[in-house]
Structure formats: C-alpha cells, structure tokens
C-alpha cells in the first residue's frame, strides 16, 4: 500500500511522524501553560480544518465553487442540538447522533446539488451562497408556529459527549494528571481529524477522486470518457456535506450552545479562504490554510493591543481592524504571488513498478 506521505527516506519519514505525533500529544498541556483559552482555540481550529477538508472535496477535487458550505455545518450542529438537549427533552448518545447528523447533512448536500448540476463558476457560487442564507434564515424563523429551532435565541444546554461515565465536558484526574474538558475534546477531535485525512487521501487516489478531478479539469472530456458527471458531482456535494455535518455535531457538543449567528455567510467565505489560501486540492495545503487562518487572528488578538500599548502608550487602532486589514492584505498578496495557494496541488508521481513489468496493450 502506498504510504500516506511518499518519500525517498522511509526511516526519516517514520521518525518525523513519530515526532509530530508526540508534539500533538503534549500540545494541550503545553498550551494550558500559556492559558486555558488556547486549548479551546486549538479545538476550534481543528473544527475549521475538518470543515476545510470537507469543502476541499467540493471545491478542490470536483472544482465546484460552494459559497454556502457553512449550511451543512449548521445542519449537523442543529441535528445534534435537537436530539441531545432539553429543547425537545431528547438525550440520545453522541455516537448515534453524529452519524445521523452526517446523514442529514449529506441529504442536504444532494438537495443543493440536484438543482445546480448544470451551473458552474460564478453562477454556482451565487446559488450556493443563496442556499447557505436560506438555511440560516430558516433556522432563525423556525420557532413558530411550531417551535423547532428556537429561532434567534438558539438552543442552550446541549449535552456534551458522554461515554458511559466518561464526560467530555468535565475535568477529571487520571493518574494525578489533570485533564480538562477541552483537552479531552482535543484528543477526540485529533482522532476524528486523522480519520478524515485518511479518508480524503484515499478518496483522492481512487477511481472516484480521479473522476472528480477530471470533471474539474474538463467536464465535457470527462463525460466523453464515460464519467457520469451528474452522479459524481452529487457524490462530491454529499461527501463534502457529510464531513460538514460531523464537524457541526462536534461543534454543538463542545459549545453546548448554538444559534443561527454561528452560521453566517462570513463563515462560509472564511472556509473558502482557508481552502484557497492553503492550496485547493492539496490536503496538506488545506490543513495549513485552515490552521493559519484560525490561529493568526487569535495571536493578533492577544498581541496587537499590548504591542500598541508598549509602543505608543495607548490603543491607536482597534485590534479587530488590524486583523481584517492584515487578512485583506494577505489575500491580495496571495492572489498576486501564489495564486495556486501556499502548497499548490502537487503532481502525484507514481512508482510504476507494476506497470514497468507490464505487457504492451493489445
């Protein structure tokens, strides 16, 4: 089987993987040293990585620009919230709801995909953008005549993940080591992320992934080569949406409170920016893009204010303004200097060992 990271030095690669794994394992404890908030920030960053990887299937692999992706996150989040909160008095376990949420999001993906099959580029972007807004407005207004979503007030008191007596929201001590709720979620998110990365890599290097990339490159040629572009596009929407649904369910459980405000258009655009900044179609690039756009604003939040205080003795510019300014400048610079992203989609070289011994075609 092909390794996750192809390399000429398998030993060095293995050592690298072990080092990264160790670093990721001790990371939350190191972060707790700086401040507990940083573990939460890291958890949110991982959620964004999950979302970006889901959107990458639609945008990066199949080449379908989706500006309403946050809708699937919302669907997953609300599915979890409705099935595990005092709102309806339902308290199903998370390992039941997360697959349901993923499935419901998947259905919404097909729902969005079906009418947009013939659209491309700008037109598709506009329709998907509208779809995202429709979902949010529905969530905002489905409080009457029957109260389903509790409207703009959102849903509170959502159950955290529980596994038997193991509660992800509370602090517990194992062998004298204090493990807070966010740290527990961190490890869970990391595990989910690992699975999602493997699934993405495998999909990309498969018959399905190649069909998506063929559609991205030239839809007419893809059809003429026997690819059922309708089914493949729907599949891309469905797969992307179901990853969004999983991330949404976890978001719901971690926050224990959700409202339509978390699923606004800017969030969709943010995720598209992560995918584009990192490098559409390149899984590692997308991860990098999502981490950068999640962490850098937070770092700025904590450094811009104090820096100004130190330099000028007072706050001259609001940190939020500087954040948006840097964000804008970064995106413009990216488009100018690295239009394909920080880590552009790389050519996949194949070993061709089997092929070399092959016989000539008839």
């Amino acid at each position, binding site marked *: *089987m092909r390794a996750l990271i192809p390399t000429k030095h398998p030993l060095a690669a293995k050592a690298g993987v072990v080092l990264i794994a160790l670093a990721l394992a001790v990371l939350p404890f190191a972060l707790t040293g700086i401040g507990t908030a940083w573990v939460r920030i890291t958890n949110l960053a991982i959620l964004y990585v999950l979302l970006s990887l889901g959107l990458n299937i639609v945008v990066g692999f199949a080449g379908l620009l989706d500006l309403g992706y946050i809708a699937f996150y919302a669907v997953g989040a609300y599915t979890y919230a409705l099935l595990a909160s005092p709102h309806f008095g339902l308290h199903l376990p998370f390992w039941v709801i997360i697959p349901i949420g993923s499935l419901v999001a998947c259905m919404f993906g097909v729902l969005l995909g079906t009418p947009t099959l013939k659209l491309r580029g700008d037109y598709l972007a506009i329709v998907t953008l509208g779809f995202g807004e429709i979902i949010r407005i529905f969530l905002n207004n489905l409080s009457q005549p029957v109260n389903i979503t509790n409207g703009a007030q959102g849903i509170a008191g959502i159950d955290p993940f529980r596994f038997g007596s193991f509660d992800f929201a509370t602090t517990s001590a194992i062998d004298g080591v204090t493990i807070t709720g966010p740290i527990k979620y961190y490890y869970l998110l990391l595990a989910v992320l690992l699975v999602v990365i493997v*699934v993405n890599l*495998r*999909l990309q290097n*498969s*018959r*399905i*992934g*190649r*069909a998506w*990339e*063929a559609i991205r*490159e*030239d839809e*007419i*040629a*893809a*059809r*003429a*080569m*026997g*690819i*059922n*572009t309708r089914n493949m596009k729907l*599949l891309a929407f469905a*797969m992307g949406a179901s990853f969004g649904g999983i991330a949404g369910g976890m978001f719901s459980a971690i926050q224990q409170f959700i409202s339509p405000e978390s699923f606004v258009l800017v969030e969709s655009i943010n995720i598209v920016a992560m995918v584009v900044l990192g490098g559409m179609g390149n899984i590692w690039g997308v991860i990098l893009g999502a981490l950068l756009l999640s962490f850098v604003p937070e770092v700025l939040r904590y450094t811009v204010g104090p820096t100004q205080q130190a330099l000028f003795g007072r706050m001259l510019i609001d940190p939020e303004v500087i954040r948006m300014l840097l964000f804008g400048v970064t995106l413009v610079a990216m488009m100018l200097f690295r239009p394909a992203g920080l880590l552009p*989609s790389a*050519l*996949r*070289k*194949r070993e*061709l060992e*089997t*092929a*070399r011994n*092959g*016989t*000539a*075609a*008839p």
Partner: protein
Amino acid sequence: MDESTLLVADGITKRFGGVQALSEVAFTIRKGEIYGLIGPNGAGKTSLFNVLTGIYPADEGSFTFEGRALDGLKPHEVAARGIARTFQNIRLFANLSALENVMVGRHVRTHATVLGAIFRNAGTKAEERAIEKRAYALLEYVGVHRRANDLARHLAYGDQRRLEIARALATDPRLLALDEPAAGMNATETAALRELLESIRRDGTTILLIEHDMRLVMSVCDRVLVLDYGKKIAEGVAADVQKDEKVIAAYLGGEVRLDVARA
C-alpha cells in the same frame, strides 16, 4: 444488417438556429476499417462527432451501433457502449499527469465505489493496480510512457495528441473517433501517427477519422465520406473520392487539381 456492420448513420439532421449543420447524413462503417470523414472547414464534421457521441441530440435520424440504437444516450453512456473520441482542440485533463489522464479513461470499465475507495479492500487494491498497469501499457503503446509522470499540459503538442488517443483507448472502444489527430504535427510526427492508426486497426479497433491532412487520409483510410455544408457529397474508396468533381470543387472551387498522391 450483416455481421460486418459496426455503425449505421441514418438521416442525421442537426440545426443550430437557422444554420443547417447536418442534413440527412447517412453512412455505414464496417468492422475493422478506417473510415475517413473529410470536408472543408465548417462542413459539419465535428458536429457529426458531437451528435454521434451524445454531446448534442440529433434533430432527426439515428445512429445504430452494433445493432442497437444510440438515440437519446448521454455522452458517458455512449462511451460505455464502446465509442471513444478525441477532440479537435485538445481537451486533456491539464493538471493531471499523463498516466492519470489514461487512468481516468479506465473509469467506465472499473467499479470501485466510495466505500471501496475509503476502506481500500483487496478488490479495490487489485483493481487500482490493474488500472495503473493498463494505463501505463497504453502510454507505451502510443509512445508517451517516458512522460508518464509529467503533467499533461507540459507535454509537447504531438505527445498531447497521442495521449488523447491513449486516454480514449483506455475505455476499451470498438469504435475510436479521432477529430483531426494530425493537426499541428510535422511530417515525422504524422508518419508515426499513421503507423499508430494502422496498429490500432490491426489490434481490432475500428477508426472514424476526421482529418485535413489529405496525404494521411488517402494513405490510411479504406473509405472516405465527404461532407460539404452539412450534406454528404461523396462516399467511397479514397482513390475514387479524390477524383470526384464535386469534392474537388468543394475544396478548391474547382480551379486547382487536388494533390493527393499517395505518400
């Protein structure tokens, strides 16, 4: 219809607004032949390809392939039936490697599903190996295997044309429809292409060839169909067609003799 018939076109008509792109074109392609389709620019050759491969529906008439009608089939269904094509303006998957381009061509003959791809079970792995092996063999067959790991868009023009043929062959076609494969090739490349066409035919694939290079058409085609303004003006053995008054007139306005000496 006898055993040797592969494709029958019957009264194919196609209009684009007021333009009559094809009017009642009828012809028969036999198994194992190289069938030429020629005509001046705008004669309707590519339109005929697009109707045949399901990109446009015909307004009237129908194609019968291996005894079954192709009416109303979508392009991917036509490919599944066994007709593969190339494009006049090369349409490769530019940002995939040459090998991956050909591997995409195997899509229609393979079966791995999403679950198979995710769990990578033994069947999927074996299929993936077979796809790669077959794709590489096809690259060798058309002579582009040294560039297997290069992006399709980095290939030389002639290699891109050959890669398109390899990609089409990967769908295991019984009929290979080539739209001006020699366009932009120099004399050496064209000669090599001719050999490739001959060996494809020898290996059992029938070829429908649109081509402007008359030397190539006259030397490889068993029979030729001439279109002008969407109508069939001549059909027959290459040697006869090149002497046809109407054909000469269509190409050259009847003033100059067509130089189509056998290469």
